[in-house]
């Protein structure tokens, strides 16, 4: 940022100064006066093509490093689900605690937001953290940040989404980890744990009849699937992230696991975004050695890989 600003300032000031200087120095003093016929200079042209190009490449490289880092979340994050809909934000903490237009996070911890939209495109943006990401209906986007200072910060919807776009915002509250844990346990009574809710859905929607945990069902076992590389029928592999799990629920035929038949029906239109998130949370909690979902505290049973 400083780098680009300095370079821009340098060129901005230098060129403006040159123009102003020439403007006065070479003003017309005689009505019939001509300028000196200079047609061009190959060396100058080359210089001002090559130098800006090199400078631009350094800017690009710096921006690229930051961006790649931003798009690839670190491991061991605190995963929070955020759903945008016209015109409000719903966030769901790992414990199942739901918030509307509020988001509480502990300081000093990498937080990953998994973003889903129920209608149009939104954008979750926290200017104070220098982060934002579009929330696109039909697939998940993720973003992450590590809050470094306790406080309350604005968040906005940054992608125009209709009538009350400008009212679709709220506050991120960054708390000390202990305060955060206390807040979670204090407020979480009566809230449904997403993993438990997902487990119930897993049974209700009859997923459990095929996805046997010992791998002998008509469908692959889902133990430890999250984060693993999955071999597909067409020979390619994919990493089973949230997006893949979501797609497998809604578009089961899109990516068939090698060795299995495309038998699974689609659940498109039969589950809300929230139910899909719960089911995803449950599937993520299924590790190779099943871990009981504790559902409290800041060390969730999710996302550990």
């Amino acid at each position, binding site marked *: 940022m400083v780098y680009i600003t300095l370079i821009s300032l340098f060129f901005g000031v230098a060129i403006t100064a040159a123009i102003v200087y020439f403007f006065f120095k070479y003003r017309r003093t005689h009505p019939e006066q001509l300028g000196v016929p200079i047609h061009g200079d190959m060396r100058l042209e080359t210089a001002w093509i090559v130098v800006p190009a090199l400078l631009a490449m350094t800017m690009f490289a710096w921006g690229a490093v930051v961006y790649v880092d931003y798009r690839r979340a670190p491991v061991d994050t605190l995963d929070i689900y955020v759903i945008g809909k016209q015109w409000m934000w719903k966030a769901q903490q790992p414990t199942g605690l739901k918030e509307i237009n509020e988001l509480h996070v502990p300081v000093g911890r990498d937080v990953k937001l998994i973003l889903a939209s129920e209608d149009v495109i939104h954008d979750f943006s926290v200017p104070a953290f220098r982060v934002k990401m579009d929330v696109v209906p039909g697939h998940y986007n993720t973003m992450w940040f590590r809050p470094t200072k306790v406080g309350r910060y604005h968040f906005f919807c940054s992608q125009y989404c209709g009538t009350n776009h400008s009212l679709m915002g709220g506050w991120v509250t960054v708390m000390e980890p202990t305060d955060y844990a206390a807040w979670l346990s204090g407020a979480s009574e009566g809230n449904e744990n997403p993993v438990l809710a997902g487990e119930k859905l897993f049974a209700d929607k009859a997923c459990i009849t095929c996805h046997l945990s010992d791998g002998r069902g008509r469908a692959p076992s889902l133990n430890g699937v999250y984060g693993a590389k999955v071999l597909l029928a067409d020979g390619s592999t994919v990493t089973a992230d949230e997006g893949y799990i979501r797609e497998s629920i*809604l*578009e089961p*035929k*899109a990516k068939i696991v090698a060795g299995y038949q*495309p038998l699974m*029906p*689609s659940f*498109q*239109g*039969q589950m809300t975004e929230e139910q899909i998130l719960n089911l995803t949370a449950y599937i993520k909690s299924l590790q190779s050695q099943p871990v009981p979902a504790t559902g409290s505290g800041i060390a969730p049973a999710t996302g550990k890989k």
Partner: protein
Amino acid sequence: MHRTGELFGQYKTLEQQRETASLGMWIFLSTEVLFFGGMFMTYTLNRSTYPDIFSEASKTINLWLGAVNTVVLIASSLTMAMAVWSSQVGKKKLLTVFLVATLVLGCVFLGIKSVEYHEKYVEHHIPGWNYQFEPGADVSTNAHTQLFFSLYFAMTGLHALHMIVGAGLLLWLIRQSIRGRFTPEYNTPVENIGLYWHFVDIVWIFLFPLLYLIDRH
């Protein structure tokens, strides 16, 4: 209005006028390439996302009508090319014959197309309107096959619209041709409308495999 064969004021020679018109037509066709290109792009992405469902859906459209239409349209391109040749060598009677043949083949194409559309209507395959892919099809199949049929109707519909415009242009050409307006020196309208007609043929040459053929087996 002007008489055909006249040199317009802004040009210096007939040769310049002819070249200008031809270049203009080609540039217009290049915009048409990009115009249809947007739809081909939409098709490419959706097909690559849902290959199986697109292949399911493409099996329900009538291959034989499509194949016959391909033959009809290529034949009309041949007659159009022959019409251009007739005008170049000054065979005025033959020109009219070939133009009429082209028009007739074009109308046959549109007729067959409307039979196809009617089939789709009967099968409830018109997206957004009483849509039902197959009895008992699940929600996602119903949704994604609608993507296919939306593209099918948009692409073939826009193509058919171009055919109708072409037929209109042919009618005008036939009128002029009967009056004997076209000579080896002045046949730019025949050549340019010919280019347009061939372009519409090319679009179909791609639509046919994309919509009817791929992964049909």
